């Protein structure tokens, strides 16, 4: 039974098989159900990696047409055929027996860039980002849920298990990373595009908390041609990850120190090299410091990462058993789907837990946890 009060913490959960084995959505759905009180029925969503092995070389665009606006669909498809080779497209199957609030039409397209001569120099990823940005900002009633290869985002207005049922995730799909989020962004209007996960290319972010530095983060991202259109704070995290990790090639160990840097008094006590590094990071990337309470699970191919804010206003729990690594708002959600866990721990603020394919990298955060 759900208590009759507003609950202010989102629930988030991620599970990865570090051997790359693909598995169904049962764990993700059951874990998030176990944190139902954290949700509010106004938003939920899943990101799945390893989703489309048969189309793994193509960008999988999940595109939503709000109010099932068919003229927006025609316009979008004109844009797509103009800018991409579309090898296959279909409506994403949904279960008509599941009632969800005002569902849009959601279509998926498997595409390859079709660059004009003046765009020939652009990397494919950059090209896709620019087209996705264009569709999200310039075309009305259209929003691209996800745009990566061999992955996809399914989200909407409802409890996450309802969204899972609506898109029949447990029946139809398998992947080696599943992340899920259970609540609509707190202070923003409710619509299907606004639910988590947020994504850009194959980067996805689920987020619990509020980013009070949103305005500063947003304006910095605009300098790098990322425009926030979703009226919510989590979006900046997805773009910041794409900017720092994909475009600038920084590893998450460095990026986490940009998002949640050590306090100045800690930096003062570091050795010379570390001091120089951390001072420079804070100086140059000050606008990407994510202030306010947050826990995020960031995923992309081969990696699932959990980070909390630097004063840990929103803690995260990690767990592991064999090849499985779990990240969750609550330990109980992990235990619900994996009762015989070998290990659980709570990482320190700003200390990332990084699960990578074929490694035990996630254990590195253990000695810094409490």
């Amino acid at each position, binding site marked *: 039974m759900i208590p009759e009060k507003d609950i*202010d913490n989102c629930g988030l959960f991620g599970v990865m098989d570090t051997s790359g084995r693909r598995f169904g959505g049962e764990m993700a759905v059951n874990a998030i159900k176990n944190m139902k009180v954290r949700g509010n029925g106004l938003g939920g969503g899943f990101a799945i990696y390893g989703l489309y092995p048969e189309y793994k070389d193509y960008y999988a665009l999940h595109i939503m047409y709000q109010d099932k606006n068919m003229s927006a669909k025609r316009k979008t498809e004109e844009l797509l055929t103009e800018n991409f080779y579309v090898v296959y497209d279909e409506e994403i199957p949904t279960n008509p027996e599941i009632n969800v609030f005002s569902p849009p039409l959601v279509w998926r397209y498997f595409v390859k860039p079709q660059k004009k001569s003046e765009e020939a120099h652009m990397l494919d990823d950059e090209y896709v980002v620019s087209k996705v940005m264009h569709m999200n900002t310039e075309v009305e009633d259209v929003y691209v849920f996800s745009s990566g290869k061999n992955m996809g985002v399914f989200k909407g207005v409802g409890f996450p298990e309802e969204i899972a049922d609506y898109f029949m995730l447990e029946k139809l799909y398998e992947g080696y990373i599943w992340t899920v989020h259970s609540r609509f962004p707190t202070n923003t209007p409710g619509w299907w595009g606004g639910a988590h996960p947020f994504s850009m290319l194959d980067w996805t972010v689920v987020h619990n908390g509020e980013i009070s530095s*949103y305005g*500063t983060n947003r304006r910095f991202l605009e300098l790098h041609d990322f425009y926030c259109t979703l009226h919510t704070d989590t979006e900046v995290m997805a773009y910041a990850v794409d900017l720092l990790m994909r475009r*600038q090639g920084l590893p998450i160990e460095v990026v986490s120190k940009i998002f949640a840097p050590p306090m100045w008094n800690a930096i003062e006590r570091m050795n010379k090299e570390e001091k120089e590094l951390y001072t420079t*990071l804070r100086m140059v990337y*000050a606008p990407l410091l994510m*202030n306010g309470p947050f826990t995020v699970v960031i995923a992309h191919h081969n990696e699932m990462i959990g980070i909390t804010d630097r004063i840990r206003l929103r803690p995260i729990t990690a767990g592991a058993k064999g090849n499985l690594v779990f990240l969750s708002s609550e330990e109980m959600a992990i235990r619900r789907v994996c009762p015989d866990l070998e290990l659980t721990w709570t990482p320190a603020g700003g200390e990332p837990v990084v699960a990578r394919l074929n490694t035990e990298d996630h254990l590195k955060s253990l000695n810094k946890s409490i």
Partner: protein
Amino acid sequence: MYSHLLSEFTVQRMDDRCIRCQVCERQCPNEVHEYDKELDRMFTYEEKCVGCQRCVVMCPAKALFVRSHPSEYRMNASWTRDKFQNLKKQAETGGVVLTGSGNDKPYRIYWDHMVLNASQVTNPSIDPLREPMELKTFIGRKPDTLKINMDGDVPKVESELHPNITLKSPVLFSAMSYGAISYRAYKSLAMAAKEFGVMFNTGEGGLPVEMRKDYASNAIVQCASGRFGVDQDYLNSAAMIEIKIGQGAKPGIGGHLPGEKVAQHVAQTRMIPQGTDALSPAPQHDIYSIEDLSMLIYALKEATNYEKPVSVKIAAVHNVAAIASGIVRAGADVVAIDGIRGGTGAAPLATRDNVGIPLELALASVDRRLREEGIRSKCSILAAGGFRCSADVLKAIALGADAVYIGTAALVAMGCTLCQKCYTGKCAWGICTQNPYLVKRLNPEITSQRLVNLLKAWSHELKEMLGGMGINAIESIRGNREHLRGISLEEWELNVLGVKGAGE
């Protein structure tokens, strides 16, 4: 004195309290009070009174009151008293009406029409008494991206960084030159800046040689049109160099330090003959284009081995955003914008009160323009001109400033009462004078502590307000206009400021 003028102030002495100690007579540089020994009586010449209140606070018997004079001209909404009086002065002298301090006209103060945000429920406030709250600020050019070498255990920065200065708190002391202010006032600023970990700005009066060693790391040295005191050693005795193109109180106007304020030490510091007028022209005669400005910027960088950021200070004027863009493209690491309420030691009243635009609008426009052009991270913005409290500072940072310059607020902390007579050189508080008798009224040890206290108090308040927003590092409010809302502003004003109206 002028004839046909009403006195501005009336001086009332409570005879039953007055003990004829003559403190008032000694304290008043304007000779308002006079003791008649034969009559054992104090006389008052209130027409000379500037309303500085020095005699009032120094009177041991609390026998004095200085108030606005009750005599008034017939009420007239058009011919207000100040217009009337100034016209009479000009009729008598044929001269320009001078004034000191900042613009006192009731132009809209946008800081008072913007309110800050605070967290409730979902995003908890942070208590600065219990949690760390960080105000450290870097001023200077930053690279857009960092190249980091991941070989080895510790990642290493490979990008070449431009020089930056570090501030413990985002408040600096604005340019106030030695000569315009007394040595003791000047030194108080330097001492306070050093103790608190911020910067003072030499203005265009040079940096006394004996201060160069101790205060270099907290000094911003100015290179203005007069080039007073500028040589290689001066440039290298600083953390940052500032080219002064204009100032808020008198855009388009040069500077003038009258010869009587150019005492021996002032002359030596400025590298000019003692007793001569120090005239700095409005234009820098080698700068007539952005290319010329660029040449000076790089000449200064070259002279200091590219180790110091170079700032360019301009007054907030109509096309300020485009000007700032040019300045950044010319190679400046910092743009300092001084608004219409910026202070001054001496300016023509007409210029001070009517030329330029409010800082708030200029700052918002510059920040937006630099962002639109993708060059915002290539410079820092220092905002100046009329900051009165920590909330003004925080609002400026939320509008896009990296840090702010304070001038008048620092002077007030030292004792200034804004009598607006700085240009007479008779500052009763020992701040804006070179008269040795008056200068002695300041003790730099004490005055610098007052300044440190001011910075400390504002820093505490900044932390409180930041914590209220759920923010624990000052960089997260910079340019964060989502945390501002406008009150009683028209749509065009909200648009220029780039903030939503309250309730939105």
